């Protein structure tokens, strides 16, 4: 029986999950991704204190896997580019899980810190492979194949369809977790809006826009969001509205969101900030979205 390696469906899973699954399978183990977020998952994750909703959800996923898997795959992603960091909670994630889940399965938690160069990634791959009894070369090859196989090319921007265009900005682990974001994208579409998300921005243009800011946004994932938002705002005509979906107590978003509000204001684009936590009620959210979309419709000439 190959060992089962659990991958909690949360946070960086939404960036690298497919590659991770492929990598683990190629190492000869069985990846087990937890099912989609539900209310009980978030309630169970609530035993972690004062963190944002996605981290609570993540811990809930880790808990749900704990007695079903032999190992938990939880890489410590410190940085994925020179001069940038992940958010501190992502950096400290393995420690939080270890402290809050005593007696849980052992973690595969190699450190990835690309501020120091690509060698850190190789070391992380090798140490993950070692945990499953694989040689360094075998592991590196497995990663290479998994990366090529599952790395999706960025989708091109959709064509404007005459509908009001709303840019929905938020981290993938919020926007793509339908329970956490309460399917806000679907709700907006049902209200007759064309929704664009950061992954639809041209990555190169987004990187350039972020680099042109007066101060480097040193949180890598926030920098991507800000860059994407800026490219959408610079388009002509500008979008009809921008919604920034964040989670309460998200540190980087609290400051970057303030800057996005300003960028949108300078382009005359209406801006709505929605902060989610486990107490957010769906009805309240719908009311706010309705008010916002009504306002946008009225602004149209």
């Amino acid at each position, binding site marked *: 029986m190959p060992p089962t390696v659990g991958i909690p469906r949360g946070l960086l899973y939404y960036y690298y999950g497919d590659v991770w699954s492929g990598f683990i399978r190629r190492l000869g183990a069985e990846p087990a991704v937890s099912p989609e977020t539900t209310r009980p998952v978030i309630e169970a994750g609530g035993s972690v204190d004062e*963190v944002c909703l996605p981290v609570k959800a993540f811990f809930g996923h880790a808990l749900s896997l704990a007695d079903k898997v032999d190992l938990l795959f939880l890489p410590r992603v410190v940085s994925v580019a020179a001069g940038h960091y992940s*958010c*501190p909670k992502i*950096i400290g994630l393995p420690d939080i899980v270890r402290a809050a889940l005593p007696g849980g399965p052992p973690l595969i938690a190699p450190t990835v810190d690309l501020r120091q160069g690509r060698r850190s990634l190789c070391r992380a791959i090798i140490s993950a492979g070692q945990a499953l009894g694989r040689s360094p070369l075998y592991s590196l090859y497995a990663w290479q194949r998994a990366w090529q196989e599952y790395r999706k090319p960025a989708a091109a921007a959709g064509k404007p369809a005459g509908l009001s265009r709303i840019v929905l900005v938020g981290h993938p682990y919020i926007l793509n977790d339908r329970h956490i974001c309460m399917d806000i994208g679907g709700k907006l579409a049902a209200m007759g809006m064309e929704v664009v998300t950061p992954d639809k921005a041209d990555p190169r243009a987004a990187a350039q826009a972020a680099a042109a800011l*007066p101060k480097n946004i040193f949180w890598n994932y926030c920098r991507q969001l800000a860059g994407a938002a800026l490219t959408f705002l610079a388009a002509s005509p500008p979008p009809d509205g921008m919604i920034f979906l964040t989670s*309460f107590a998200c*540190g980087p978003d609290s*400051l970057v969101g303030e800057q996005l509000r300003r960028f949108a204001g300078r382009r005359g684009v209406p801006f709505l900030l929605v*902060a989610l936590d486990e107490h957010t009620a769906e009805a309240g959210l719908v009311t706010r979205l309705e008010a916002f979309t009504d306002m946008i419709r009225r602004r149209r000439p």
Partner: protein
Amino acid sequence: MNVTFPHMGTLHIVLKAMLTTLGVRAVPPPPISKTTIEIGARFSPETACLPFKTTLGNFIQALEAGADTILTCGGAGPCRLGYYATVQRDILRDLGYKFAMIVIEPDLASVWQSIRRLAPGGIRPLWPAFRLAGAKLRALDAIERAACRARPRAAASGDVDAERLRALAAVDEAATPAAAAEAVASSLRRLEGLPAGSGPPPLKVGLVGEIYVMLESGVNGDLVRTLGRMGAEVHPTMLLGDYVDTHILRDKAALRRSEAVAAAAAPFIGHYVGGHGMKSVGHTAAMGRTGFDGIIHVFPFTCMPEVIAKNILPVVSVQEGIPVLSLAFDEQTGEAGTVTRLEAFVDLLRYRRKRQETAAAAQKQLN
């Protein structure tokens, strides 16, 4: 040029000495009050952390009082502090203030550029400015440590506070490093001479966490003084000098000390998480082994590095056998609530110590 800067404990005395010697006028913001926090919170993003809001309040009050230049720090992450200046500058500009902002980023070129802007009369006074500021920094730390030691032992802890304020004023006025040192020496003598109280021997309490909340009595409910009054000798793990030695001067002894703290943290936290999160864990573990009665962990609400520490400290507490109280502060924090929680914690520590003493006495009799 009227230069202002954010408050943090007694830092304004140090910065004032430095700026004045360089030949610019220093305009420290008014001391942090309820109004400062209110003004700051009103114009800040809702979930920004407390130091962001309070320092923004400082800037607004100082600009209203005639400052035209703001001196503050930058940073390279992952803690939010590194991005403060960028957002605060935009907020203040949108409010209509006219000012220049000097942001000291952690690289030599930026530091040099900032110094050139702050020393319009040339860099000749640079060395005396650093020397005077350094002497005052050491003096202030010595006073703080002596006051922490004296408070739980004195018959009237108010005498200690009065003496501390007198000493701070004397250091502020000192025109030379020697005068600053002399002010401290005489103040320490007077503290030694205060009549002793008759209470039980003081509890030893370690103070760990985020530096701003630890040092700024205007936002932490005057926690150090309150604990002292309750009969606890507080050991702050981070005074101004500790920070300067480790992060700016890279002093060898200080670096060795912080390596030891990192080693104590290693079994619980495997990587630097920004700010002081790792130090909070390390100090707690180390103090648990060196006879401390308890640990108070303070941080701004939603502080990312310290939230990680907070989730790990319960494990450290159990493994090292030391009680830990974590306190988060924001603009809603009331002083009475903080005092009640500190009282309960101090009671617990007293009870625990008594139980340990009884157990030790019983063991002795058995032998």
